[in-house]
Structures are given as C-alpha cells and as structure tokens.
C-alpha cells in the first residue's frame, strides 16, 4: 500500500514538473492529448482489463460527452462547469440502461454489439446536423474558466487536463485495490464462483460499464472545451480501435499501463510525422504482435523480459 502511494506521488510530481523542464506550446498540446487519452484508456481498461468485458464502441461515449457539453454551452449558453457533469450524468444513465441488455452478451457477441453501438452514435453525430453541425463539426465551444482564469493556452490546458487525469488515476487505483475491485476481478476470472460467493455479477458489470462511460464522457467534455471544436471524425470506429490498442499495449488491468499505452500511441505518430498514412498499419501490427508475444502488455512484459535476460546473463557468467 505504502509503495503504491509513493509511486503515485512521484508520478504526480513528474506531471507537475514537466512544463517547467520542457517548454514549447506544441509539446504541451501533445501532452494534453496524452492526458485525455490516458483517461479514456483507463476508462476502457476498467471495463476490459478488470471486469473482462470487451467494448469496441468507447469512442462513442467520448463523442457523446464532447457533443453534449459542446451543444449545452453553445446553443443553450450553459456554464461549462455545469454542462460537463450534466453530460456525464446523461451518458451514465444511458450506459446504465443499455448496459443491462448488452452485458448479457459475452465475448465476440459483446464486442460486435458495442461496435454497433459506437457506430450508431457516430452516425447520429454526423446526421443530426442542426444540433451537431454534422460532418463539418461544432465550433466556438467556450473554454473553461475558473476564478477569473480562462483556460485558453497550451500550458494552462496542460495543468487543467492533467489535474483531471491524475484524479481519474487515483480514483481508479483506489477502486482496483478495494472490495469492489476484487469483486470485478473475481467476475473476470470465474463469474459463477463470484456469484456463488454473493457477488451480483450482472449489476457490477453494468455499474462498471456506466462508470467507464462517465469517465469517457468527462474526457470528451474536457476535449471539447480545450479544443473549442469537435467533429465526428474523431469519434469513429478507428478511434475505438486506437483506444483498444492503447489498453492492450500498456497492459490489461494496469492503470499505469494505460498511461504507458496512451503516451506511446499519442507520441508515436508525432515521431513518425511523414508516415501519417502508415499509422493504421502500425496499430494493426502492434495489436497482433502484443497479443501473440506479450499478452500482459508492456507493463508486465518488459520487466519479465528484463528478468529473463538478467537470468540468462548470470547463468552464462557462472558457466
């Protein structure tokens, strides 16, 4: 327990220190995306890595949060600080309602159903032009303001987003090592045994699905208010796959793994600037390679690899 606490504090200090050590609006902007993607990856990981339920439609909840918050603040002139929780509440209720029938499905069927759900949401974003602006998107979304400070620059956005990201991380870490977290992992390992011990597996799965959607919605709202512009293209099937890749690469069931996966997949395209078209191939290849050779993700695979190498080296030294 102590060690987890120290690790989190160290990580938070690192987050705070980065803008002081590195400068550049562009880097800050990219790191804002890393923060948002980390929240999304954690949301998906709670569902997939802990509870063991596949969702290929999470980009849809992300988009819902973004659009609901955007529409409330532009068309209805609601204060963003009210719009964000309102959007999260709506998304949470929706997810809760859909969760009951959809989580009766397992494995491939659940994957397809969530895929379908995500695509339906994407189509709605595109078609309800009066509300959402259609394919051209929704613009002039207001920035968040707090105590007279308007979050309109890269460095301010960085601290804004990462405060939320760290809060989500802490929330999830607490949850993972708690009674509910254990119940989730139990349902994942053996649903029938968990039920026999009194865990209401069905209800728990729906709760996590709703929580996962709420976190995604929050990330979406924050995205809308920092970018001030959203378009359906960011919330389609491709992004759902990207999120899945982040979670798998980082490590299912590891919160820090989600950060790792999100960071890697957000920063990688920046280093492959010219290879913009190739990123889709790389995701596909990465997914396959990770599942085949490092199913635990980087967060477990890399230390294991290191230990293997060290052990082989010490055997060689003693030979």
């Amino acid at each position: 327990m102590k060690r987890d606490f120290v690790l989190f504090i160290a990580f938070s200090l690192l987050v705070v220190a980065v803008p002081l050590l590195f400068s550049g609006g562009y880097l800050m902007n990219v790191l804002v995306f890393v923060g948002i993607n980390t929240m999304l990856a954690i949301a998906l990981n709670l569902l997939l890595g802990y509870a063991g339920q596949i969702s290929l439609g999470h980009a849809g909840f992300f988009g819902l949060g973004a659009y609901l918050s955007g529409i409330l603040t532009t068309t209805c002139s609601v204060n963003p600080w009210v719009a964000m929780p309102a959007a999260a509440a709506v998304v949470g209720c929706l997810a809760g309602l859909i969760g009951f029938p959809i989580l009766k499905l397992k494995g491939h069927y659940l994957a397809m159903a969530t895929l379908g759900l995500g695509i339906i949401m994407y189509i709605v974003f595109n078609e309800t032009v009066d509300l959402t602006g259609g394919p051209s998107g929704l613009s002039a979304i207001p920035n968040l303001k707090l105590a007279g400070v308007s979050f309109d620059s890269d460095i301010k956005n960085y601290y804004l987003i990462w405060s939320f990201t760290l809060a989500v991380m802490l929330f999830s870490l607490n949850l993972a090592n708690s009674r509910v977290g254990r119940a989730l992992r139990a349902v994942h390992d053996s649903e029938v045994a968990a039920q026999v011990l009194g865990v209401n597996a069905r209800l728990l799965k729906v709760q996590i699905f709703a929580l996962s959607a709420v976190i995604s919605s929050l990330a979406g709202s924050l995205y809308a208010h920092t970018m001030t512009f959203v378009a359906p293209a960011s919330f389609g099937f491709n992004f759902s796959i990207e999120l899945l890749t982040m979670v798998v690469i980082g490590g299912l069931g590891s919160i820090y793994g989600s950060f790792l996966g999100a960071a890697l997949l957000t920063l990688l395209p920046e280093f492959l600037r010219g290879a913009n078209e190739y990123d889709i191939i790389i995701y596909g290849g990465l997914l396959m390679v990770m599942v085949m050779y490092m199913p635990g993700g980087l967060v477990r695979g890399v230390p294991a690899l290191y230990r293997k190498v060290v052990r082989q080296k010490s055997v060689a030294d003693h030979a």
Partner: protein
Amino acid sequence: MLEVSGITQIFGGVTALDSVSFSMSKGDITGVIGPNGAGKTTLFNIITGIYRQSAGTVLLEGKDVTGLPPEKLARLAMVRTFQNIELFGGMTVLENVMVGMHTRSSAGLLACALKMPWSISEERRISVGALKWLEFAGIADLADHTAGSLPFGKGRLLEIARALAVEPRIILMDEPAAGLNSQETFALAQLIKRIRDLGITVVLVEHDMELVMDICDRIVVLNLGRKLAEGTPREIQESPEVIAAYLGDDD
C-alpha cells in the same frame, strides 16, 4: 435445514432427475452418493441456483428458495464449492478469501474509489478475517501466493476457506476429495468435521466411499436420476438395493 422435494430435471430427451426428495438436518454431515450419471451434480446445480429445474421445490430453513440465483443464496447463508475448483487464478490466495467476505462487507463503488475512512477500516477487517479462515484451513502460509500457481490439493483447501468466509449456515461441496491422495483426503475429513463443529451443516457429493462412510451422519443414494435409498452409513452399507446398483446383481 435443507429440503428438496419432487426435483425433476429434463434436458432435451433425457430425464436427468426424476422426482427426487429428501431432507438434510441442521448440523449434520450428509453425503449424496451414486454411480456415475446418477444426477448428483445436476441436483447440486439445481439446489445452488445454477440450473433451472423442470419441477420440484427447494426449501432452505423452511423458506422456498427454488430458482433463486447463487448470489441471493449466498446472502441466505448457503454456499457451495466446485468439482473443478473455480479459483480466481489472477489474484492472491488471501484476495480469493477476501472475495468470500463480499456479503459480510458493504463498501460500494464510490466509497471504495474515494477511499472513505469507513471503507478503509472495513478493508482491514476483511483482510484480518480472511487470514483467519486461511489459518482454519491450514494454508495461511500461502497467503501471498498467486492462486493460479497452487498445487491442486492446496487449491481445494483455498476454495473451502473462501466459501467459509461467507459465514454460511450450510455448505455444499461437490466432490471435494476428487484428485486428492489419501493423506490429503484424511486432512480433508478432519477439516469437514471441524466445519461441522462450527455449527455449519455440510452436504457432500462424493465418490470416495471411505470418506463418506467415515464422516457422514446420513447418506442419500441416487441412481439413474432417482433416489434409491436414504439412511445411516451402516444402513446404506447393508442395503441390498444399493449393493446391487453399485456392484450389479450377484446372481
């Protein structure tokens, strides 16, 4: 304590159970035996809410619990273990038992995530309680091992410790001696007797005749989906129908 009446189960064209009725008294160790295919596990699955029966009722302490799902039965203090142990392989031994205490704790999703002080003290209580059950089962030294890495015999004990953490009034064990050597079976017999001494009613499905005759107060014999006989171990050993069912007619 537990009464089944008229339990009938039909799968497609096969009648797995045909109007089976018997009762188990509080504080007894009851054994359910029978040749393979007699319907013992099917009966178990019906009692413990995993299957829907075609007909019949199950009464727990006088209350009709027929068709209730397993999680509700756990809150009514009935628990079971599985023939192919269903451990939570990704968690530690201690964590497995801590899940057993799920019904004896109540911190919800928000309380856990926000680390409310009362959820922290409850967590400590769960941890201490789980360790006690590991000691009862004799495997406290394995508390930090990954459950998936345990040898089979220890895994059995873990599953029992985990079930006991529910603080049940009745525990149903599906072939607990399966896969154990004679030493482990002896230790199991002692453990079951200690469980009975705690006041918990025990029902076993078993094939190991020595174990059954040794510890059971009453025995129910099933054959081909029907109840064949019911009585004390001595009565069952001397019953001609039971002998015929197991060994075939002597003519």
